[in-house]
């Protein structure tokens, strides 16, 4: 996973880079907010960013605000890093669009734990987005049968859009994923048997064998 570290303090950046790199994260660095924005606007930009609050050109909260407003649906996990630890600062940082907040100086264990949370959230978002895409594709392929169908009250044929009266089974097969196996129900079988017997009887009295 790619991570952007944006901090003009070289010592802080060094701690972050040397903590995250051995954990198999691919780390990119920026030394001010404008550079961070430029990197985050690239098509293949890192999805997780650790942004210092006080940076030259554009500060961390403004980077969060701009990135969130430019791509509201993008899967991005933003962590603000700062020595400000007052509750109002935490609220302001989160309201600017940050997902999490880390207080300087960094504690290695806490940094890794919070980055892992971010990575897990991004994985879940990615999985969810892929599932939604799959479902949308499946939905687009399902033939839907709905609306008012004109049907003959006697023979039960359905009038198609082309004004053709079609057997109900044929119509349903054309307009849905349903398939039919044909048989005779017990009631119809009894009726049919009676009619056949009747027919045989009539023919035998006329000397016709069937």
């Amino acid at each position, binding site marked *: 996973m790619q991570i952007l570290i944006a901090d*003009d*303090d*070289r*010592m*802080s950046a*060094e*701690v972050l880079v*040397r*903590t995250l790199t051995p954990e198999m994260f691919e780390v990119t660095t920026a030394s001010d907010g404008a550079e961070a924005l430029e990197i985050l606007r690239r098509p293949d930009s890192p999805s997780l960013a650790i942004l210092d609050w*006080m940076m030259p050109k554009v500060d961390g909260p403004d980077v969060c605000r701009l990135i969130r407003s430019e791509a509201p649906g993008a899967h991005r996990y933003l962590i603000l890093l700062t*020595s400000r*630890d007052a509750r109002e600062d935490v609220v302001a940082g989160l309201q600017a669009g940050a997902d999490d907040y880390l*207080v*300087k*100086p*960094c*504690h*290695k*264990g806490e940094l890794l734990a919070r980055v892992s949370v971010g990575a897990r959230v991004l994985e879940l978002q990615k999985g969810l987005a892929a599932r939604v895409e799959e479902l949308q594709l499946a939905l687009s392929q399902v033939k839907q049968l709905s609306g008012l169908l004109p049907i003959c009250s006697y023979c039960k044929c359905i009038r198609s859009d082309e004004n053709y009266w079609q057997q109900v089974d044929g119509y349903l097969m054309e307009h849905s994923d349903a398939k039919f196996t044909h048989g005779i129900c017990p009631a119809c079988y009894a009726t049919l048997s009676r009619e056949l017997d009747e027919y045989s009887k009539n023919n035998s009295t006329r000397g016709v064998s069937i």
Partner: protein
Amino acid sequence: MNIPSSAVRMDINDMRRRLGDDEALIAVLFRQFLKDYAARLESIKSAVNGRRLDDLRREAHMMKGNASNLSAFGVVEAAAALEDSADRGGGADVDRLFAKLVVEVEQLVTELRGLLGRL
């Protein structure tokens, strides 16, 4: 940031705990500070003399951040006081606060050189 009120000016054990006993990283940070501190102090001095409060706030903040990475609470405290003073409009105490910061940094530099030799 929680600055201990004790007389501990630099707590190497706090730094070790925070950085997972990564002695190589600790040495890198010591060297980085020793490389940068003189220029940083010079920038602060220039901002103090010129009463450029934005520059003073930024440079003092940077010094505070650098020192906090080293758990150097004496410098953190002195730099924070200077940053606060700049925030409040930089009163007459700016020169005194800068002098205090210089003393704290010099003590830290001596301590870091000693520790670096033992790492």
